């Protein structure tokens, strides 16, 4: 979340789309109700199905799964054509005025509808764009500013080369009529939503967006989030209280896990994992390295139209070398960081979920890749949650061994009991522990790290996961001890699990301290926060984002203080916007609303005044020359007035980007494409047969897709309040199981009549991947759509079930395809094709 849970109460309009917050985040939903009660906020629910969230919304709009970009693109078009965008904010805080290369073409004027400039000729899916044209126009480099590129800036928004005009052109055909044609949402209702939502372009109002997997789990999920972000930037809703774009995380600590680099392409703190390419061979020092290095590649140059006068580009990622070097020193403190960099595994291929299982199924044969022999499964149940589940079950058969750490037998640990054939995989089930059986920090969607104590010990031989990991690491270290081989040094030199001589004996606290960071010199002690980290190898820090969570003081030596354990439940903000600064600690630097520099006027007579004074976040006092006490932690450069820096310091151009500059693979602007499986044969936006779906999507060679002739019904999947994700926990709890005892498919009364199905009947749901038998839930909450002139039915399936546990049932993921987002490969669980017959 750019903002945080409590901040939802400050919103004037709440768009719940791609999320069913009342169902999946019922506790946090109270802040939605708070906004309704205290600010008379309007709640808008946009969903293919009328949900528990819709039941509490002022306005509900139905929209076909997979058409979200058309809907949001239509809102962008509405804002621009009706002059309902925040002109001052757009000029000051976004790259609207920045000039784009004249050879860049949008999907409207490229001559190939639906494609931007740079797509290879020939209408072939799966190719990569040449992104050269997706860039600013630049002035010649100024040798006085070697780390700055100098883009050209237009004088006003009417300049045909500027980003704003490109944006306007790109979305010019996303009219209400087009939205109705693609999404199936009536124009009048769509216009009503646009009117209410876009009204927050006024500075004193704000709208927030609550989204979750309903936006991400599409082949164009990343672009979908971009569309929503562009809308928020146009309306001046980013960085302000009650605004932002807010991803509602679905697991207790999923935010923490991504922060700490569990994903294959990331190190900790969102630094990229080095790749197995020549320019990542050496660590280097930064962008001015004479030869190609990892840090030269990864450390951005600032972009500033006029580097000689403020505002300047904050370009916070210029600090990346400090963070990477400090992480290397945390892991291998006795090794020069240029050497320990080479200990890091170099990424050589895609290792996302689907790719891993495809690799298990079809072991790679090229000489530089090796088959996957073993698998650790922690806190995960892929034999319920993975797409194309029966295919993934076959993949597990090719393993030599698999270790599952869980509290119960799950479909994954017991896959061999139902998979046909002679299975050689040796499976180990380690008894793990429940969240209340271990202590430590958990980070919620608000980026808020909260420390929890252990309530009781795990039963029997069960152990906390960190203890299991420590013992595993200890055993591996012991195996390699005494080896003098260079190839073993990443293990023999490893600081495992952490330096207890400096950080104390408690495992969990010691790791938290290492994550926070400390000085390696003889004085030692913690750094204060990440502003104290250095790139010279004298500081160690496991994750720069969390640097600040575990120290206090005004000068060295600082004291170890666990701020994640702060528990003062008092509001600290003078405007009562719900900051509660002394409860837990949110990264970065306990900032509760990121990008908050954009919440004040950037220059002029009212420089530093908040856009909305009744819910101000930060406020620059021009007399005292400082920000007012009690405000949120200023987003970087906390002593500098607003006009000293461009507001978005994490971007090297300092601007919220209405147009992405070589960021995503499938276009600098989002464009509507159909899901990979669609009931349509032409793209309703362009009328073209290519590209029907996202042209850049990677298609695994052996995945099968269904045609709308055989599988005419759109399907989506989702979770229920009553069950927890893969169900390994909740389907073993009788109290929860009796509430939702078995799986079902929700369908409209119209579809039920057409199929001769009565509520509660058993029905067979089939896709090109497989079929399942589940109960029918015939409901008014689904309605058929009219899309591109045809009637399209949609159904929905919760996917918590599998064959194990006290409450077994068919898995909806038998039906879902092996296809993922162009940029992240998150599976397209939310839109695929099925057929339904009465069982």
């Amino acid at each position, binding site marked *: 979340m750019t903002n945080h849970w409590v901040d939802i109460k400050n919103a004037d309009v709440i768009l719940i789309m791609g999320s069913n917050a009342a169902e999946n985040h*019922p506790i946090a939903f109270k802040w939605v109700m708070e906004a309704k009660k205290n600010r008379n906020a309007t709640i808008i629910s946009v969903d293919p199905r009328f949900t528990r969230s819709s039941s*509490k919304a002022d306005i509900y709009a139905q929209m076909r799964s997979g058409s979200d970009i058309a809907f949001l693109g239509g809102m962008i078009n509405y804002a621009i054509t009706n002059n309902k965008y925040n002109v001052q904010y757009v000029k000051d805080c976004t790259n609207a005025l920045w000039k784009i290369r004249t050879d860049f073409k949008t999907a409207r004027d490229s001559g190939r509808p639906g494609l931007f400039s740079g797509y290879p000729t020939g209408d072939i899916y799966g190719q990569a764009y040449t992104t050269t044209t997706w860039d600013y126009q630049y002035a010649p480099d100024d040798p006085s500013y070697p780390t700055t590129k100098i883009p050209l800036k237009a004088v006003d928004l009417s300049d045909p080369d500027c980003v704003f005009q490109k944006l306007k052109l790109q979305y010019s055909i996303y009219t209400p009529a087009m939205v109705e044609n693609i999404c199936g949402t009536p124009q009048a209702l769509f216009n009503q939503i646009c009117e209410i939502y876009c009204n927050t372009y006024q500075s004193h109002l704000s709208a927030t967006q609550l989204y979750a997997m309903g936006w991400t789990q599409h082949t164009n999920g990343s672009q979908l989030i971009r569309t929503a972000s562009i809308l928020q930037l146009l309306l001046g809703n980013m960085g302000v209280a009650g605004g932002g774009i807010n991803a509602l995380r679905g697991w207790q600590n999923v935010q923490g896990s991504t922060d700490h680099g569990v994903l294959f392409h990331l190190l900790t703190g969102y630094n990229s994992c080095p790749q197995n390419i020549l320019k990542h061979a050496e660590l280097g020092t930064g962008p001015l390295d004479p030869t190609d290095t990892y840090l030269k590649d990864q450390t951005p140059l600032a972009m500033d139209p006029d580097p000689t006068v403020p505002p300047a580009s904050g370009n916070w990622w210029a600090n990346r070398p400090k963070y990477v070097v400090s992480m290397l020193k945390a892991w291998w403190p006795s090794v020069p960081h240029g050497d320990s960099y080479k200990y890091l595994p170099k990424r050589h291929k895609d290792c996302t979920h689907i790719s891993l299982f495809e690799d298990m199924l079809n072991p790679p044969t090229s000489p530089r890749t090796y088959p996957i022999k073993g698998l650790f499964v922690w806190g995960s149940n892929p034999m319920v949650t993975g797409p194309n589940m029966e295919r993934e079950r076959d993949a597990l058969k090719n393993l030599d061994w698999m270790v599952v750490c869980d509290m119960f037998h799950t479909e994954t640990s017991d896959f061999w009991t139902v998979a046909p054939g002679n299975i050689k995989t040796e499976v180990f089930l380690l008894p793990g522990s429940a969240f209340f059986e271990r202590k430590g920090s958990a980070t919620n969607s608000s980026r808020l790290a909260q420390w929890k104590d252990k309530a009781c010990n795990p039963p029997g031989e069960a152990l906390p996961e960190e203890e299991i990991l420590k013992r595993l690491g200890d055993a591996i270290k012991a195996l390699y001890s005494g080896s003098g081989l260079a190839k073993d040094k990443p293990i023999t030199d490893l600081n495992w699990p952490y330096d207890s001589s400096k950080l104390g004996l408690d495992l969990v606290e010691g790791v938290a301290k290492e994550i926070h960071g400390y000085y390696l010199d003889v004085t030692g002690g913690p750094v204060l926060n990440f502003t104290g980290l250095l790139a010279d190898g004298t500081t160690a820090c496991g994750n720069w984002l969390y640097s600040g969570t575990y120290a206090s003081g005004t000068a060295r030596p600082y004291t170890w203080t666990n701020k994640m354990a702060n528990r003062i439940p008092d509001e600290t903000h003078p405007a009562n916007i719900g900051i509660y600064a002394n409860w837990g600690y949110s990264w970065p630097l306990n900032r509760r609303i990121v990008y908050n520099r954009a919440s004040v006027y950037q220059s002029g007579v009212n420089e530093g005044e908040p856009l909305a004074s009744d819910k101000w976040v930060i406020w620059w006092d021009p007399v005292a020359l400082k920000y007012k006490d009690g405000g949120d932690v200023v987003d970087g450069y906390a002593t500098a007035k607003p006009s000293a820096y461009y507001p978005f310091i994490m971007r090297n151009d300092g601007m919220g980007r209405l147009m992405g500059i070589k960021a995503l693979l499938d276009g600098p602007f989002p464009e509507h494409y159909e899901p990979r499986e669609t009931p349509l044969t032409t793209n309703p936006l362009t009328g073209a047969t290519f590209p029907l779906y996202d042209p850049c999507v990677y298609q695994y060679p052996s995945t099968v897709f269904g045609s709308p002739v055989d599988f005419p019904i759109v399907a989506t999947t989702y979770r229920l309040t009553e069950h927890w994700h893969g169900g390994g926990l909740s389907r073993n709890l009788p109290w*929860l199981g*009796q509430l939702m005892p078995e799986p079902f498919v929700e369908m409209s009364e119209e579809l039920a009549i057409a199929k001769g199905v009565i*509520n509660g009947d058993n029905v067979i749901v089939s896709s090109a991947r497989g079929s399942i038998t589940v109960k*029918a*839930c015939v409901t008014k909450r689904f309605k058929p759509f009219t899309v591109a002139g045809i009637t399209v039915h949609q159904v929905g399936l919760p996917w918590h079930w599998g064959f194990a546990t006290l409450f077994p049932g068919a898995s909806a993921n038998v039906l879902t395809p092996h296809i993922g987002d162009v940029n992240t490969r998150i599976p397209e669980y939310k839109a695929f094709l099925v057929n339904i017959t009465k069982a």
Partner: protein
Amino acid sequence: MIGIRLLIDTSKCVACRACQVACQQWHSLPSEDTTFTGTYQNPPDVSGANLTVAKFFEVYDTKLNWLFFKDQCRHCENPFCLQRCPLNAIIRDATTGIVRIDPVKCDPSICHGAETKPCQVQCPYGIPEYKYVKDGSLVRTVMRKCDFCYDRFDYDFNHDPLNNPTWDTGSRKPACELTCPPGAILSGDADSILTEANNRVNYLKTDGFPDASVYPKQIDDPTHVIWVLTKIWSVYGL
């Protein structure tokens, strides 16, 4: 009215059913056998194992509504169930107004001969129940219904109301109220809670719910459990 009152605000309820689970947990009640019958509502009704059940209604008026109603004992000021109990097993605490069934005195096997017992016949809301199905077998237990979690309070229910006319729930609340994520459940002094309910109804009437009302109508049937309904009472199957 003297005593305590519980308010259930359906305009805030999202039917997450945490109240159902919290109720079973506090009362150490077992789960019962269920199947999916085409609705989220499960178990279908209150039973010997579930003292409260959220009921779901899909209703069209000017637009589609999905309405939720947490059904349970109303704790009538004048409980008919108590008046007709042949075993004198139903107790009303005069100070709080809580109506509960004494599990020692209640014994359906020796009560009135029919399957349906006098308290069930008398209850206008169809609440008390002593049967449920577990592991395929019909289980008969004592008659059960909401007891307001009276045993969570720092309050002596064996008090002499003449000498100890005040009640105090301390910091504790009924299990359903404590767990309710959106804060749809509120307990407190009977008159204050009714005032709060009327305030909420008045607000809802200005916020798109012209038919909002307090249920049951307290003039005719004063109760210690009340609801704020967003729609007319009849659409909730009441």
